[in-house]
């Protein structure tokens, strides 16, 4: 039996990030299905920590029963084209030396692990590699070094990097692309001219067991009145826009209203908005469940999603969602589940909030539909089975 080896720049119990959380749960789920699973990663914590920080000890350890092998982190700009490729020991169907300079620069500006890439070249026999997420050097160079044992779990969304020639080649070169959602798969096929068979929707799961405590959370944080929530808030996820839209909505309507933001990279909140915005920083998963349950509406303004774990987690707690109409992935989920509504621009944002805040029955119905959909579609055992089958 081949060892399924997940290659990801950061992995561990204290590691934040959507792809990192997905890797952790996918590894455990595939192990539970009887697969032999290993994770190859670096000693770094996550993308929010300094890139040269050694957070986890080097070598082999166990995380949730999964064997994790950690290699030394190579900080940005301390690496280039890996030695094996530069010395032309390996054949690749594209002359990577001719890639545009800015694309090579992007790769060298991200963390990598020279030793990890070395291990792929020397220990690839008997393995199936899942590389994730797509932009990192461990993924790009790794897919070349792993050859016909390379599978890509890209966590792809529409962003400038996705249009790079290097990634276009990578998506075509790997054995298969494993998509988190039908919308992501459609985007990959459209973007890179891939066949139906080349892109498989394996989906993504979430932990379906947590039950949040609405009242306890509200009491703990002294929250009264309507509560809106966005988890995983950071600039790239359109948080600035959400704060500005809500500020204008509040200025126009008045009344008690709170937007709770959680995550490691929260925007600077002006003092005058301290009654409107509640920045709570990074929450444990238990407290996050309480926060979802405490919220009246979960808002996800992001346009860069391949699945949106936070959206699914909020539905699990029965909270209705308001998503950005310019994001295919979250819009598709909202349409399929009936768990929320969508907005585009401030006018629709204000109109949607007017409607949702005024009607508790509507909120409850949407939330219940989202909850039922998540419980039926986000089971890790199903995702693990589909992933293992896609690697066969």
């Amino acid at each position, binding site marked *: 039996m081949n060892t399924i080896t997940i290659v990801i720049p950061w992995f561990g119990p204290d590691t934040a990030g959507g792809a990192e959380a997905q890797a952790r749960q996918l590894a455990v789920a595939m192990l539970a299905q009887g697969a032999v699973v290993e994770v190859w990663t670096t000693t770094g914590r996550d993308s929010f920590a300094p890139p040269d920080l050694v957070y986890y000890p080097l070598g082999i350890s166990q995380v949730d029963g999964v064997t994790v092998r950690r290699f030394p982190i190579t900080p940005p700009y301390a690496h280039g084209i890996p030695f094996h490729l530069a010395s032309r020991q390996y054949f690749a169907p594209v002359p990577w030396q001719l890639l545009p300079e800015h694309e090579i620069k992007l790769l060298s500006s991200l963390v990598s692990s020279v030793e990890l890439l070395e291990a792929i070249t020397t220990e690839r026999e008997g393995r199936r590699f899942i590389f994730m997420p797509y932009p990192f050097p461990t993924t790009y160079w790794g897919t070349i070094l792993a050859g016909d044992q390379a599978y890509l779990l890209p966590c792809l969304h529409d962003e400038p990097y996705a249009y790079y020639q290097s990634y276009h080649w990578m998506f075509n070169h790997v054995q298969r692309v494993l998509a988190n959602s039908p919308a992501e798969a459609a985007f990959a096929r459209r973007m890179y001219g891939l066949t139906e068979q080349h892109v498989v929707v394996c989906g993504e799961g979430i932990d379906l067991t947590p039950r949040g405590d609405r009242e306890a959370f509200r009491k703990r944080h002294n929250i009264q*009145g*309507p509560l809106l929530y966005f988890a995983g808030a950071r600039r790239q996820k359109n948080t*600035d*826009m959400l704060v*500005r*839209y809500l*500020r*204008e*909505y*509040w*200025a*126009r*309507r*008045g*009344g*008690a*209203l709170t937007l709770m933001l959680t995550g490691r990279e929260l925007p*600077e909140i*002006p*003092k*005058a*908005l301290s*009654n*409107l915005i509640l920045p709570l920083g990074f929450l444990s998963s238990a407290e996050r469940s309480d926060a979802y349950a405490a919220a*009246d509406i979960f808002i996800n303004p992001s346009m860069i999603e391949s699945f949106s774990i936070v959206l699914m987690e909020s539905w699990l707690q029965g909270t209705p969602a308001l998503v950005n109409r310019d994001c295919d992935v979250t819009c598709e989920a909202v*349409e399929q589940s*009936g768990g929320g*509504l*969508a*907005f*585009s*621009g*401030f*006018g*629709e*944002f*204000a*109109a*949607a*909030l*007017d*409607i949702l*805040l*005024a*009607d*508790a*029955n*509507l909120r409850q*119905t*949407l939330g*219940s*539909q989202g909850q039922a959909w998540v419980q039926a579609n986000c089971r890790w055992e199903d995702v693990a089975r589909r992933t293992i089958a896609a690697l066969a």
Partner: protein
Amino acid sequence: MSSEPTVQQLGVILEQLRATIRERRFIQGTSELSAVEQDVRRSLDEIELHRVISAHWPLKARNPIERLINLLNKLVRRLLRWYINPIVEQQNAYNDAVARTLRLLADAYTELAEQTRDPRTSEPPHQEPRTENQEPRTKPALSVAEGNQELPTGSQAHTFQHSNIPTLQRAVIQQLIEQRGQLEPPARFVELELAAQEQRLDLHQRVNAHWPLVGATLVDRAVAFAQTAIRRYLRWLINPIVEQQNNANAAMSSALHDMVRLDADRRAEVALLRATRHNE
């Protein structure tokens, strides 16, 4: 016979054009803007007129000796343009980012002033956020139920009190959102444009005098080698100028970032004021 203007005549024409633009903008602005706002607009116009630096200004000569010197100067300038022009272009890109940021900040001040002038009368007639247990202060322009009646819901229309919302019904609510969204008075959100502009400032702030000089062919490589040697020799002259300009750019960027933050603070304070007046 050619009637093309001389360099001196061109200079005069350009100055006349600038004066006309200033005069026209002054006349346009006087009726609506305060004295300070007019000054700001005039300063922005000045920036617009002077933000583009040229490395190829006209060289004037009054006698044959000066003409000879000019000829030599033109030759040197032409031979060095591979080195000087890219530096000038980088600075122009930064100047452009500064000018745009300043213009957006001026727009932001004007827009903020409009918000503060008469908050009570300028607010749109919509209801405030409320929970279902509270009575609305003002009647919403269009309620969900009314929206359902007006929109083509078909035979499957249900009220929201029932357990499930059929797909068609959700589509109707979505349609209602779009409809009501169009009725909402527009909001510009200048600061989102400013945030994008701040990224451009950071991107262009540092002028680099040492970009890679490479060539694909043997001849190109020989030229690149010669240019590298010349650049290395001239760095005593060019690098201090570039470094001083970079320090000035960094200081300007820092000031502009602070002004953007200040704008965000003021905007938040105005929002608080407007929201509070709704509650009175």
